[in-house]
């Protein structure tokens, strides 16, 4: 079960940031919901997002796929095809830290998954919401 909620925030310089909060468990049953919601936001003009992981109690490798897809969508590129798995990410090359997507407060299990898979280096991770919003 995963609940997705979105707040719109504005930085001091007037830029809009979508704060997407994930509450519950992110697995193979729920990761497409996250990608779908992000796609709606991007279609509506969102270009920057803070992903609040404070209440995400579990993330499987499907969640890593979702994070990567979000970064691509926010960058204006097509998200990789879930049917193709990791090998489908031909256009979705990610070599540097994403500027458009930042993470807030990952819990220990989620943090370990990011660390163990080498994904953490692709994302700026914050523990304070206000500071995270100000960092964009």
């Amino acid at each position: 079960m995963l609940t997705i909620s979105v707040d719109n925030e504005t930085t001091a310089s007037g830029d809009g940031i979508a704060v997407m909060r994930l509450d519950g468990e992110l697995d193979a049953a729920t990761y497409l919901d996250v990608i779908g919601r992000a796609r709606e936001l991007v279609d509506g003009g969102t270009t920057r997002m803070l992903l609040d992981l404070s209440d995400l109690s579990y993330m499987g490798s499907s969640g890593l796929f979702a994070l990567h897809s979000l970064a691509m969508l926010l960058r204006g590129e097509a998200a990789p095809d879930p049917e193709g798995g990791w090998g489908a990410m031909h256009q979705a090359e990610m070599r540097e830290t994403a500027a458009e997507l930042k993470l807030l407060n990952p819990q220990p299990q989620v943090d370990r998954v990011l660390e163990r898979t080498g994904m953490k280096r692709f994302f700026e991770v914050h523990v304070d919401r206000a500071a995270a919003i100000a960092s964009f």
Partner: protein
Amino acid sequence: MRGMVERLARSLEMKLPADVGRLAELRAFVRRSSADLDVGRHATNDIVQAVDECATNVIVHGYRGAGGELRVEVERVDDELIVRLSDRAPAFDPTSVPEPDLELPLERRPPGGMGVYLARRLTDAMQYRRTRAGNELTLIKGITEGSQHADDQR
């Protein structure tokens, strides 16, 4: 002293449809079983994720979303937690999936390789056996007395 400890072997089992919508139930079952078998929190978290990743592979890549059954058995034998996943999907040996190179950009990593990689990292051993009915994957997690206590600090 440890050699004198009475040998413990207890097991719990469940069957469920091979559907990603049932993964949360599967994780809850493994978590509950592990706690019932007096396994510490950290080892439990690791085995729960390893089972989730392997079961996801069976459902998505084995059964290819066509449905089927997944049988899970959780057993503690002395200082080892053993989870056996059985299915009737076409043959697939996750232990033969090559390790991904984590230095590579994501798009060059093999499909499904991340889940298997995590399962390997989170367990002490993974054993695959092709059975007459399908596939049987055994995940083994060692539980040392020290780590059980250390786990509770996390």
